[in-house]
């Protein structure tokens, strides 16, 4: 095998590796979105996809944090307003995107106004007294613990007439 081929192969192997997040300074990566006047970050391994929020319907008789239900590749996906759950004040008007979060088989869309970007998770987070928020970064990004958010009782809707 020629030296060039060897080099290319080596390089290919290197690129084929998933990015070793934990080894990077700052730890895991988070995807950050603007939701209303706030910034929210979710661990990217829990972000299933980001889609324009075009086809959704409001869901009657549901709590205010339920933004509606959306058509996600032919399946109905609930939309949960994370801002409403965390801050008590919800997103205003129509959101442009839905961020589909997934953990432990639970799949939920979170409406968002703007995609900010992907960043390493800040090492230092100011703690918040919320069961599913890991903390707030220096620039005010609220880092959500997606697993506990999706399993949280706070977003369960189970109501009888």
């Amino acid at each position, binding site marked *: 095998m020629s030296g060039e081929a060897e080099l290319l192969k080596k390089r290919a192997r290197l690129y084929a590796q998933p990015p070793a997040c934990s080894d990077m300074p700052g730890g895991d990566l988070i995807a950050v979105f603007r939701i209303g006047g706030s910034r929210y970050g979710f661990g990217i391994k829990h972000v299933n996809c980001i889609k324009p929020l075009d086809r959704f*319907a409001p869901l009657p*008789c549901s709590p205010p944090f339920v933004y509606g*239900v959306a058509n996600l590749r032919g399946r109905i996906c609930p939309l949960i307003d994370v801002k409403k759950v965390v801050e008590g004040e919800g997103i205003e008007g129509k959101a442009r995107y839905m961020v589909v979060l997934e953990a432990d088989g639970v799949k939920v869309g979170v409406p968002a106004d703007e995609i900010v970007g992907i960043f390493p998770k800040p090492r230092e987070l100011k703690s918040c007294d919320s069961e599913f928020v890991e903390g707030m970064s220096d620039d005010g990004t609220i880092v959500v613990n997606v697993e506990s958010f999706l399993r949280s009782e706070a977003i*369960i*809707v*189970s*109501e009888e*007439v």
Partner: protein
Amino acid sequence: MTVLEEGMLEQLLEVFKSEAEEHIQRITQMMLQLEKGEAGEEALEELFREAHSLKGAARAVELERISETAHLIETIFSKIKSKELSLSDEIVELVYEGLDGIAQMLERGEEGFDLEGYASKVNGVLSGSSSEDAEERSITPSPKAEEPKPRPISERMMKVDVSKLDLLMERVGELVTLRVTVEERVKEAIRILRSFERIYRSIDCGLRDEFKEAISELRRFIFNLRADCFDISSLTKEIEEGVKSLRLQPVSFLFNSFDRMVRDLAKREGKKVRFEKAGMETELDRKILEELREPMAHLISNAIHHGIETPEERKKAGKPEEGVVKVAARSQGDKVLIEVEDDGRGIDLEKVRESALRSGIISREAAEEMGDEELLRLIFKQGVSTAEEVTEISGRGVGLNAVWDKVEKLKGSVAVENRPGKGCKFTLCLPMTIVTTKVLVVKVGGAMFGIPASFVERTLLVKPEEVRRLDGRTVILYEDKAIELVPLAWLLEMGEPEIEEEEFKAVIISSGSRSVGLAVDDLMREEEVVVQGFERPLLRVRNVLGAAISADGRIITVLNPGDLVRSALKRRPSFKGKPEKPEPKTILVVEDSVTTRTLERNILESFGYNVLVARDGAEAKEILQAVNCDLVVSDIQMPNVDGFELTAWIKNHPNLKHIPVILVTSLESEEDKKKGLEVGADAYIVKSGFDHEKLLETIKRLI
């Protein structure tokens, strides 16, 4: 011994399992008949053969322990046959124990049963009669045992793996969606063709002829396509119906499986119970049958445990000692009604009241105010039970709640009829098949909602004068009954409904025995959809069953009729009807085609208009001069006097010229439109198929 490939063995085991279940079912059935004295000697022969076949089949798939258990049962039967043993209670129990053992092994694998313990029990009993039985108990088949005659299997029947049917069903579901999409596409193509035709009429250059030819070719192509599409549609429909019917099974499969349970339970409780079954040939989707097993078992055990009294109690109450638990099925349109009825003591509403209070479901004031019917409905709530103590089978207070949930998931409903001292009857109403659901799509506050069509009694146009107030409730009269009327927007918490001054559309829905009218902004269409239930975190949403994706990709929120009825009867909103009483408007429909005429007449009448019809312009003229009409809807092409002529005549008539005229045609043509407006028509409508929305809208605008 041949080593079977793993996949093949797996398949074989599946086949064996269903065969074994059938043998067990038949043995149970015959044993019960023998016990009741309804079968004679020949049944013993059958029993022996069933057990023998079971043994052979088990050995074929190398399930030795099942085979051996079957062998023990077979031996018991052979001894009874040869009169060395009699069919005592002890022996009957022993056979059942063996059958249960086999069922357990089928379910949990061969280690799930103490075969050795069972074998020594059986041998103990047998040795009392004969000593050679011990050696009979071997794995090798007894050469003396006669080969069972194979059961005649009809050559016209074959067994099919259920999972294959399920897969087929799923695919058909997709095909149905696809069919609708293709139909939409063809409509779109026709629309595009129309715009080409319009362009053609307005171009005036050298290419006109070529263009014309290209258009006719396109037209031929599209119309052929449409014809093919119709064929595909009707075929798809047939396939869908066919696959649905493949999955239908008679309820006897379900009902027969309760024989043992009834017998065992009655015995344990020291009660005498006759189990009656009716409507056994009624068919239901097998998935629904499967899902019904648990709720039915619960209702039946409730009937025996809570309902049927002890023989002494019954005697005292002047009833026959033997109680009756009856299950019955019958179809009603595309629904199946299943009843579980007993002639026991009925439900003690006072106990329900106490239990509900104890569990904190209702307050004391509410409890005291509650009527019988409302109390009865409480039994379906979690935590309410009339049982004094918790037993293995029922009385946990979650049972009826689970029954309710299950039936609701199957898009059915539960009704209960209580006759204190005389018995109790639960009626489950279920769809015969599942997969797609027909929903009536209604519009409220700009959003689309689907109401499962099987719950829709009818749709109607309500005029203000038909709305009555009855002790604080708003009602309309429908079939001589006062039906509570509630704006759907209010039930769905979409804000306060506007005060209704004009007529509005309503849907009457019924669930169980109760009906309500829902006022909506508009009735859109009926649509076949696949209703998707919500998943965590949306475990249960009030008034909403799930959502479906419409053929055009939009989301239709599918409402829960049972909840809607409950919500409506809970809240008491009111309408303010307009005091004065406007006369219904009279419309004259002029149309030479009898089909179109009848269709238009029916539609307009259903929206509350008085309708007169004329076959052509000449007849229309006569009617107009004799009767006061508020509006004329006329076709253009007609014999004698056509639409243009009629319009011109009306518009030039001194007494009639104020009457609005709508010209309706099935082909759009700019020239016609221009001509129509020139002669004074107030509107010109191109209508396609059954879409009458535009016509209704225009009529509303003009009068």
